[in-house]
């Protein structure tokens, strides 16, 4: 793979996008004289327009994987492509946005000037950049801080301006490394909405986060990394499984009637799985229709958390959707 490709101009025709493809990615670092392999043959496929979560313990290789995709690190082996092009192709770079865990830039630079600089590096004219930045700063509630030096920004504000700089070029491929780190609840909701908006406009998003609940809410699929390998992949959106626990009024229900509808009953608690909120409502209606008195209905915890804790799928399956052509 070439380290830096010459700048190429994107095709004027908008071709169907091909997403992100990684094959046999290996990367090692020298640590105290010894070579340590951090990525040991990673294969993954991300469809254009998907929102993908990367999950793994510290040291699993998530950041190294993202760094290779962004061209910060050069792989020892493997083939990495974004939209069918090498990851360091300038045409790819022009369509890529990156949010680091901590945005670092000159402390004396004003927030708006920083964004204008980033936008110009992304190839926008000063006029186009200004209009887009104003809209983004307003969207991310940074307008009041636009003329303040970055050194005076709080952690959460730096995180939000990091998002602004990533989105200013309206990227087709968005790489987010712990984007909600340091954000307050309102900032967290804002980021969640923003990612949803990016997905809605067709952007491909790769999210590296330790916040499982966030990943579960946002992502279509997740890849679990362990010791430098993709341990498995899980689809969250298409076949999402939501375990539901319904506490029933003792003596008010017919166990067999409930079981005939596919519910498990233990004591006065009936359990079942549904796929979405409409499924929950239908389940409750069904239980009530059998004559049972419903005392409480609740989701049985985050399934992604269970997957991560147990190292297995809550549905009992040992693996989900693996990358095409992968192991």
């Amino acid at each position, binding site marked *: 793979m070439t380290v*830096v490709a010459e700048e190429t101009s994107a095709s004027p025709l908008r071709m169907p996008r091909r997403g992100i493809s990684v094959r046999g990615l290996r990367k090692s670092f020298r640590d105290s004289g010894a070579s340590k392999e951090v990525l040991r043959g990673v294969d993954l496929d991300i469809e254009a327009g998907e929102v993908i979560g990367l999950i793994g313990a510290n040291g699993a290789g998530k950041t190294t994987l993202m760094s290779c995709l962004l061209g*910060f690190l*050069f792989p020892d082996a493997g083939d990495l492509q974004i939209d069918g092009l090498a990851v360091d192709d300038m045409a790819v770079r022009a369509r890529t946005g990156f949010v680091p*865990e901590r945005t670092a830039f*000159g402390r004396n630079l004003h927030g708006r000037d920083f964004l204008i600089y980033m936008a110009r*590096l992304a190839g926008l004219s000063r006029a186009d950049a200004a209009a887009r930045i104003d809209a983004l700063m307003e969207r991310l509630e940074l307008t009041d801080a636009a003329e303040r030096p970055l050194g005076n920004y709080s952690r959460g504000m730096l995180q939000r301006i990091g998002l602004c700089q990533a989105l200013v070029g309206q990227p087709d491929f968005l790489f987010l490394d712990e984007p909600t780190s340091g954000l307050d609840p309102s900032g967290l909701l804002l980021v969640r909405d923003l990612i949803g908006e990016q997905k809605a406009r067709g952007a491909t998003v790769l999210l590296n986060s330790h916040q499982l609940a966030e990943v579960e809410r946002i992502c279509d699929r997740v890849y679990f990394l362990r010791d430098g390998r993709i341990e498995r992949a899980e689809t969250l959106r298409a076949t999402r499984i939501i375990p539901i626990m319904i506490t029933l009024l003792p003596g008010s229900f017919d166990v067999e009637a409930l079981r005939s509808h596919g519910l498990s009953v233990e004591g006065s608690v009936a359990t079942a799985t549904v796929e979405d909120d409409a499924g929950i409502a239908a389940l409750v209606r069904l239980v009530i229709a059998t004559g049972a008195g419903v005392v409480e209905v609740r989701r049985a915890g985050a399934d992604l958390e269970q997957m991560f804790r147990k190292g297995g799928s809550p549905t009992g399956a040992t693996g989900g959707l693996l990358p095409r052509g992968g192991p």
Partner: protein
Amino acid sequence: MIRAVIEQTYRRTMTHGAMIFGALVVVAFGVFNAPQIPYGLAWLIVLGTGSQLIGPEFSSGTLQLIVARPVNRSRYLLSRVGGAFAAIVTVDAIAAASLAVGKYAGNNPDSWSALGQAAGKYALGGLLALSLLALFGSFTRSYANIAIYIVLETAFAATIAWLAMMRMPRERSSALASFLQRRPEVVKAVKWLSGNLFPDATAVTREYVLLILANSAVALFLGCLFFRRREIPYGAD
């Protein structure tokens, strides 16, 4: 070259507090003294500006934001040096203007030609220093580039003086002194290297200009080469 990077580097350099203070001191000394003092002070601005090239950006994580953009790394490095050089030329102009005012006021006995030579030497020396600092910054972290520059400059000066002492004829020569007397090319090589990295000329001649331009070009070429091949680990420091 990338215009946005040149402009940004220039603006950041010229609005830096230390830079403004330095320029004011240069003006004050320029109006009331000989050119050696204002240009000596202005040289600190060259080193301060050059120390910011690449290495500190690597350590702070700024480079990741840059290389994630459609920015050719070589063009970025050259543009950073270009912006810094533009700032140095501005300082040069400020120093020259202050010296001209000093001369009109009768505080400066130097000829106009000498003042012009001082301005030319500052700009050319600044270009080479910036190129070397960019080269050193292309493979080091933080402010190691300025440390390498100062250590090299000091080490060359000390080595040349020491070698000259060793070559002086004595009643009893040490083995090293004898070796140096037999092999004058060793001293010559050290002087050549020092003269290329840290040239000092009494006048700005055609040869001096060519030497500076050629050596700056080599330094920048190597800097681009190293920077293109450099990995930028996430959260470098």
